[in-house]
């Protein structure tokens, strides 16, 4: 409980560097991989990298997702960065709403252009409506969660692709 113990918990400088290197590698890897990522698991022991891509809207998002895992060798040589899409994720556990009120038009539809700061949905938690705001511009490529469905933390709600990019 003593503060000293808490501070001792922080990793040493070496560990921090390792983590930073790993972080940089993972970011580079995520940039290089095509498609909207749902999950990227990196293990150091067996040097495995598991990638799970965001799936199409046909799949019920609330259901347990069978991991679609692909193993790629790591580390990956840095190629030209081509971002295929940006996942917009739920910051909360709650109920996702695609429209401001029942029966109203949805905030966004597939193909809509969005601007930074634009609300693209709502996650209701503890009876509070929490707007989901995008922080970069793009075009809605996919909406993965249906109206009034439960979402967990970090679940991909929708995918954006860069504005003006290939359809």
């Amino acid at each position, binding site marked *: 409980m003593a503060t000293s113990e808490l501070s001792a918990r922080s990793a040493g400088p070496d560990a921090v560097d390792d983590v930073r290197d790993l972080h940089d590698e993972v970011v580079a890897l995520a940039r290089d991989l095509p498609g909207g990522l749902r999950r990227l698991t990196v293990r150091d022991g067996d040097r495995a990298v598991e990638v799970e891509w965001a799936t199409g809207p046909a799949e019920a998002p609330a259901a347990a997702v069978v991991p679609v895992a692909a193993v790629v060798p790591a580390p990956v040589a840095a190629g030209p960065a081509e971002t295929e899409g940006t996942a917009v994720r739920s910051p909360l556990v709650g109920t996702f709403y695609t429209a401001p009120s029942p029966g109203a038009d949805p905030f966004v539809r597939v193909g809509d252009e969005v601007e930074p700061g634009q609300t693209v949905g709502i996650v209701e938690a503890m009876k*509070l409506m929490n707007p989901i705001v995008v922080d970069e511009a793009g075009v809605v490529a996919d909406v993965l969660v249906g109206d009034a469905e439960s979402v967990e933390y970090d679940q991909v709600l929708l995918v954006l692709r860069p504005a003006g990019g290939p359809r």
Partner: protein
Amino acid sequence: MTRSATPAPPVPAPQPPGGWVSCPACGWLLYRKRLDRDLHVCPECDHHLRLGARARIDLLADPGSWAETHFAPSAPDPLAFTDLRDYPDRLAEAERRSGESEAVVVGTARIGGAEVVLAVMDFGFLGGSMGVEVGRRVSGAAELALERGLPLVTVCASGGARMQEGVFSLLQMARVSCAFGRLREAGLLSVCVLTDPTYGGVSASFATLASILVGERGAHVGFAGPRVVQETIRAELPRDFQTAEFLMSHGLVDRVESRAELRPLLVRLLALHGAGPAPEARGDDDPADAPAVAEDDGPDADTDTDDLDDTDADPWDVVQRARVTERPTTLDYLHTAFDDFVELHGDRVFADDPAVVGGVAAIGGRRVVVLGHEKGHTVRERVARNFGMPHPEGYRKALRLLDHAESFGLPVVTLVDTPGAHPGPEAEERGQSHAIAEAILRSSRLRVPVVSVVTGEGGSGGALALCTSDRLLVMENAFLSVISPEGCAAILWRTAVAAPTAARAMRLGAAHLRSAGIATAVVPEPPGGAHTDPLAAAGLLRRALVRELDDVCRLDAATLLDTRTRRLARISGDDGRPLQPVGS
């Protein structure tokens, strides 16, 4: 300036029903009951949510001590103003929504047992704007404080002057400022807590006229609102622009406190200014216990010798001991030799110089203002404190704290430990010489006692700015010099290697200062120097200070000034022969 100068942030929307709210700054979900217990501070991002006047009073006043002052109803709407709605309509709605009859609530209360007049603004009432009634109530609060001889505590939250009352609002700035001026003349303490937001006609009048200004953490305080500023200069503003923290770093407020710290701070400030219970003494101040201290009974005694004569300490040893990085600094002594200390920051003009610290303190049951150089210990601290070398703003902070001491009749203690005033172009641009000179002059004519202690290095004019005093104590391993021994050696011996020789030639050290009649007493240190046992050193300093203060506080202002003048006139190398006109 006449209008509500800020684009007043909108009154927070009525909170949705239910047990939860989301933080307006970070969106974190907050359980309302816990938020109430947490004083409406977001635990995630430390955002201080706005508080109404009643919640403020509950936060600050002793339970059950609040007695509201009711003002006879006045005739509102002097201009018969109508914008999209009639002004009386807006007033009625503001009253309904906030539960208050105007944007400020006035009454008396106790804070930590100290009786005060309390005036609290409510931003929920038309953005806390100041019209005729707010002006009347705030000046009424000041008059009540004058009448009853009580401190005045104000809590500000305002977008500025109220547009709907036009030029009548503008003139309230003069009305309330005049009332605060009378408070100052009467030597009554005023403390203003600046909360989010405080702007325009309120920040440019009573909100910044109090004796002590405390910003609530994260509060935005300024004259023109950030959007106005941005549109005018068309440049990116710093992220912390106009926050309380920004103000403090620019020397404009004394302190920044979290909401939970506000009441404890007010309790201490009131006690340290003589309101409420007397400061607690430690109970170990019996002068009979005091160890033998080499001292004389007054400036006239110059014949007694003591065991701290020149032969005892080599001046170069003294210089080195005075510079040991572990040697206790002013802040160390403030936390060990004094019973309480509240630091007051800033020169109220430009910056807060970390090389000079000052504030109000208690020692042995006595309230004092303390000023001192601060060096810090670690490399990081020493760099941040500029090695204890003040800029002009440091001396100007000292100056305004000397004024503060005189206003409230508090004796002054200064602790001197500096290599010298900062030599640099910025310091020259801002008038280093003038700032030092004013500090010396002010302390030479101060109507309250000044006791100075050279605790380490007393380097030149930068030290003397805090040395002009009724009593000048010097610690055993401290010295006062006109130039550093290295500097002297470089100039006169043409090599800095001769510094030890120069130190001896200049006769640096406590013993010489004492025998020359410059120092009035020597404060002993633990064997090996103060850094070997900082607590013991603090105890020795404390005893010396308590003794000197007891002695010098017996004198009235006229005697004090007269004695001080004579003392300064007598200091010379020839045993204080008075100046005789030739041939008389």
